[in-house]
């Protein structure tokens, strides 16, 4: 059995929404270089709807795939709904991750939440 599901490999090979957004409404960065993974999420938010999202990731295959999948899952969704996103949902959407890679999906959840917090702190 290969290490990763076909879905993980698809998102790793062809990541969706990769890049950055100039003048993003919210930016979130989590992880650190010492641990070997950093995720950065850029959000464009209009009327409390995520109208655009981009990501940049320094990390392994599952970190890149988790970021890609997570951005797909939140695009077009209202902020309130996005705040309910869990790492479990990201993992399930990827048809699972190896146990020692689950933290990658946690990072994706955290990066998105950090970006929304950044947005909310600017729009109080």
């Amino acid at each position: 059995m290969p290490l990763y599901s076909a879905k993980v490999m698809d998102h790793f090979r062809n990541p969706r929404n990769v890049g950055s957004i100039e003048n993003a409404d919210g930016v979130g960065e989590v992880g650190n270089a010492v641990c070997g993974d950093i995720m950065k999420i850029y959000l464009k938010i209009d009327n409390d709807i995520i109208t655009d999202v981009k990501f940049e990731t320094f990390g392994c295959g599952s970190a890149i795939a988790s970021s890609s999948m997570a951005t797909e899952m939140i695009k077009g969704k209202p902020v309130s709904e996005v705040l309910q996103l869990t790492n479990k949902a990201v993992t399930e959407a990827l048809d699972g991750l190896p146990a020692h890679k689950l933290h990658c999906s946690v990072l994706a959840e955290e990066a998105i939440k950090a970006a929304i917090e950044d947005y909310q702190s600017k729009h109080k």
Partner: protein
Amino acid sequence: MIYADNAATTQMSEKAIKAMLPYMEKIWGNPSSLYSFGQEAKDAMNFAREEIAHCLGAAAAEIYFTSGGSESDNQAIISAAKIGAKKNKRHIISTAFEHHAVLHTLDKLKREGFDIELLDVHENGIVTPEQIKNSIRADTALVTIMYANNEIGTIQPISEIGEICRAAKIIFHTDAVQAAGHLPIDVKAQNIDMLSISAHKFHGPKGIGALYARKGIQLVNIIEGGAQERGKRGGTENVPAIMGMSAALSDACANMAANNSKLLKLRQKLIGGLIKIPHSTLNGDADKRLPGNVSFCFEGIEGEALLLHLDDRGICASSGSACTSGSLDPSHVLLAIGRPHEIAHGSLRLTLCENNTEDEVEKIIAAVGEVVEYLRSISPLWKDKVIGKREFILPA
């Protein structure tokens, strides 16, 4: 497919396969059996023992067949520790970047009260004879230093260390798993007391290795059982694998000079190509390294992602990143030579053999360049460095 992971395992040579077949198809008797059908297998096995001994400069009676490098390392170290403990000697000298078969055995001994001293291997990945000399104490039971490192390929000053240990009457073991068949070995001339080898690193079969133990060194059993291997390793001998190992080692030793001169050219071409990637570095000494070993770190990327993309391009390689080591920390070898965690995560090991070609090396250089550039383009860490928000660690 381009196979560039020969330090992990090698393709079996045709000679090795051919040497094994008769002992599966025809002469499959148990070497311990009395009847001539069994004795035929025993004769073959003893011929193999002679051949292996010859390749290492040892006597046949000093060669013990094991399941591979790990078992040989375990048995060598445990035996030396037991010999030392009898004389109240419990100090063992080794290095921080040994294979885990050595390090974990030493950990076990540490828990049993042994004093384990792991020497620094410096940025070039080489321990000096002076360090050994300065570390030796009246209660030193063993010095165990690998012949050549499995990740960064650096070759240790084995002859000099052997001389020091012999003069101090201390047992000297070397894990020669990466060196056997690739570098000249003469246990007598080099004053080596114990040495571990593994067949699948030199185009032999997996699951078979040998331990050389100088006459007079009392081995402790790791596997209890029958009287095989002069009572030092129980279990019916894997005769086909032993025949394959012997054929592979003789072949590797006979062709060593020719293989290495070819490999050196390939290695230098590969290093020359990869060093052109900005903010990259070669791991380990540039000259004193295995002729097929190329180990690099690329700043701003993670090794597992690099390996997966290389796999998509048909290239088999390995990395010392945490994600490939299965732990939270990157390779202990890269940390031992002082690479910061961040840099160690971006490591790539390419290990060539004489069957690789210049064309393959060119393809590897091109593929690694493309993948590193791509991964950097999506890396927020790299971007921060480019815009000056974070500092580069490796020079451009």
